[in-house]
């Protein structure tokens, strides 16, 4: 309580404050701050320490290829090295039930050989954040791996197509299956995306004395990936008969690897080499074969290519698609498995009738003869395996890994996992989006 008798200015600062007198100068405080900061290095305000000017060039080369942050000069308080959780490499030996609901690393060499830096579906963003290609080992993965081990002895009569909602994990499952097949000694013919086959982004041309169109560049790339991934398995399989490609003839003692090498030497012979490879591989019983096609719905679609009369070409007018169509229309392998995965990302390459067959309308209790005769609702020539939503245990494993990879910084509790899982309806892509929304 201030004395009302005589006003005298208190001596100390605190006393003055208590007395209700406001300080008119903050210079002591500023001086104190300066003394405290004198030990810190002064910031050079003439040039940026962390952010560097982007390189000159076209927008396409500038964007998306390099970051504008110079990490060598970045402030360590803000830019930390991403954690690199140790993961087991997915292979035939590690693909067991004991690894359920855990993340496993995909062999980068396999991805480089099959994709040349590209990844199937939307996995590129995931792998970039993880720091390495890694996927969750789910129950459906175990089911597929077990099925593949069975089919390595006795092949099924029909191919299998993975179907499900956008982001359910179809491409991821196919990639895991192809990786396990490669380590199991299969001949792996894996196309991580068949969109370039139909979206008019790659060269094409009319075939010689044929109404089919050829895509030598694409077939060449496919053969390169096959021989890079499965050379050992290809060397075990003899041709069994003399094969003539162009002007050269291979004796029956030669192997499939020699056949592919001959096809790679001359791009115009690539299609012939692929046809011979598929013909011999499907009938031989020495080594099991795995054929995996992502976005397999493109085999039945109307492409973006046009013929010389400017008419749109269906996919079955292309020799490359024609080579694989029989496998999904009843022609089986002697040993091995043919698996495809659908994709609804590019709607224009998903035929309507196929979409209706994959997702038939609900059964009508009253028998309707018109509906029965409807060609849109009919039987498929391959088996369909639906990739369902994540289970609660799988969602827990997913979030645990996200925390290890520093994608989720808050403690992972049951409540958080349940919340993310329910909000995403068990969809892995939506769960990933839910935790990276502010990235």
């Amino acid at each position: 309580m201030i004395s009302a008798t005589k006003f005298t200015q208190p001596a100390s600062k605190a006393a003055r404050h208590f007395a209700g007198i406001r300080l008119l100068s903050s210079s002591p405080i500023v001086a104190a701050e300066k003394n405290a900061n004198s030990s810190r290095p002064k910031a050079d305000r003439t040039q940026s320490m962390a952010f560097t000017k982007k390189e000159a060039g076209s927008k396409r080369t500038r964007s998306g290829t390099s970051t504008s942050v110079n990490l060598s000069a970045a402030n360590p308080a803000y830019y930390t090295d991403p954690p690199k959780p140790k993961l087991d490499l997915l292979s035939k030996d590690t693909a067991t039930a004991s690894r359920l609901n855990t993340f496993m690393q995909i062999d980068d060499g396999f991805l480089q050989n099959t994709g040349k830096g590209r990844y199937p579906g939307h996995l590129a963003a995931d792998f970039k954040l993880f720091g390495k290609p890694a996927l969750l080992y789910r129950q459906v993965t175990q089911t597929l791996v077990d099925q593949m081990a069975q089919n390595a002895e006795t092949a099924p009569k029909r191919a299998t197509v993975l179907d499900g909602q956008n982001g359910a994990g179809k491409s991821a499952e196919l990639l895991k299956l192809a990786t396990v097949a490669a380590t199991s000694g299969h001949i792996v013919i894996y196309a991580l995306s068949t969109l370039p086959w139909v979206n008019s982004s790659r060269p094409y041309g009319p075939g010689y004395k044929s109404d089919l169109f050829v895509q030598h560049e694409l077939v060449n790339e496919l053969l390169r990936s096959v021989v890079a991934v499965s050379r050992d398995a290809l060397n075990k399989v003899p041709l069994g008969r003399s094969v003539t490609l162009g002007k050269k003839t291979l004796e029956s003692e030669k192997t499939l690897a020699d056949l592919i090498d001959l096809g790679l030497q001359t791009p115009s012979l690539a299609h012939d080499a692929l046809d011979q490879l598929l013909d011999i591989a499907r009938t031989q019983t020495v080594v099991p074969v795995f054929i995996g096609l992502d976005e397999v719905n493109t085999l039945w679609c109307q492409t973006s290519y046009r013929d010389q009369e400017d008419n749109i070409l269906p996919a079955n007018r292309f020799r490359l698609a024609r080579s694989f169509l029989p496998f999904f229309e009843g022609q089986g392998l002697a040993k091995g498995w043919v698996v495809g995965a659908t994709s609804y990302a590019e709607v224009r390459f998903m035929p309507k009738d196929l979409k209706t067959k994959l997702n038939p309308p609900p059964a009508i209790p009253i028998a309707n003869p018109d509906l029965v005769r409807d060609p849109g609702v009919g039987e498929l020539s391959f088996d369909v395996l639906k990739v369902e939503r994540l289970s609660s245990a799988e969602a827990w494993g997913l979030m645990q890994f996200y925390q290890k990879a520093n994608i989720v910084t808050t403690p992972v509790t049951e409540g958080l996992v349940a919340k993310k899982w329910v909000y995403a309806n068990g969809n892995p892509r939506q769960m990933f989006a839910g935790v990276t929304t502010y990235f």
Partner: protein
Amino acid sequence: MDVILFRYGQPARFLLQFATIIPLYSSYSLLITSMLHLLGVNLPDQKVVSVALTYFYGIGPLTARKICSRLSFHKECKLSELTEGQLNQLSGVLSEMTIENDLKRQVAANVQHLRQIGTYVGKRHAMGLPVHGQRTRGNSVTAKKLNGKMLRKYSTVADTAFTRQAMGMFQSPLSKHQN
């Protein structure tokens, strides 16, 4: 670097022996942008073929697409990716078409013909007014600017007051009132 001069007006039926790559300096950077000189038109090398073909007078997006379909060029094919044989084929197809100055001369001749036979359309071209029934009370700025331009540029008849009167094709809006 060899330069091939294509004579305008004559259909280039010979095959393109080699294209002329002209280095250009962009005004905004020091990068060299290469252009393909084809049948008298500079085509940017980095453009998609179906887009680059629209740089020709007389070729629009549909015609360009049909040309690409005929020659089996995919949609994302760029000019720089074409081989010499493909360029020859492209040149051959383009030389069969009426484009550039051939087309301009043809259009001008059509308009001249309409004028000479004394049609309403010919008269409208001569007066530099809209041809297709548009209003002239307002607007018609484009027609006044463009119509008849080709006649003035390509007319083989001497464009004098005497010839105009002799032809009897030109009547100014005020002339009938004067008479």
